[in-house]
């Protein structure tokens, strides 16, 4: 598996799932927290990736 983006999604999913069940108890609260945290992790990673894009390899 060489897709960096897919690995990012898998990692974010696992970490988000972990923290959702670690910190939240109610069903609706969990769902909301999961979606927000997952989106934040993926979004922040993509954002930082683009920030680093002009840098030399």
């Amino acid at each position, binding site marked *: *598996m060489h897709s960096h983006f897919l*690995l990012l999604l*898998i*990692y974010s999913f*696992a*970490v988000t*799932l*972990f923290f959702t069940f*670690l910190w939240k108890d109610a069903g609706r609260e969990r769902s909301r927290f999961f979606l927000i945290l997952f989106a934040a992790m993926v979004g922040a990673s993509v954002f930082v990736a683009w920030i680093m894009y002009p840098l030399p390899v």
Partner: protein
Amino acid sequence: MSVRPAEIAPAEFSSPGSPLWAVVFAWVFPGAGHFYLGRRKRAVLFAAIVLSMFAYGLFLGGRIWKVESNDPFSMLATGASMGLGTPYFLSRSFLGYEIQEGNIASVTYEYGITFALTAAIMNLLLMLDAWDIASGKKK
């Protein structure tokens, strides 16, 4: 005479078990601390997440850390990896040399390291969480 809510002292959550044993169990095996404290479903989920992340990290070519004299970072990484408990020591004892060293030539080598280390650090968090639950600080 009625008692206003502000006059009632906040009740602590009841402690379902010994904090020390909860932490020990949590360290010995991912999720075992929560299982000991009665959070059975959550324990199984945590175990599945931590163990699958560790296994996937090795599958991606990540390494199992051990202390190396010429690499100070290895001490930190090994200490963190030991947080995984039994799976770490079983892996060090029974997995082949190639798996333990990882595949540095693989494009997913660093991902594998990240997955495996994250799994171990997650278990350290589970140990802390088990302590909080057993101490009555968390419901």
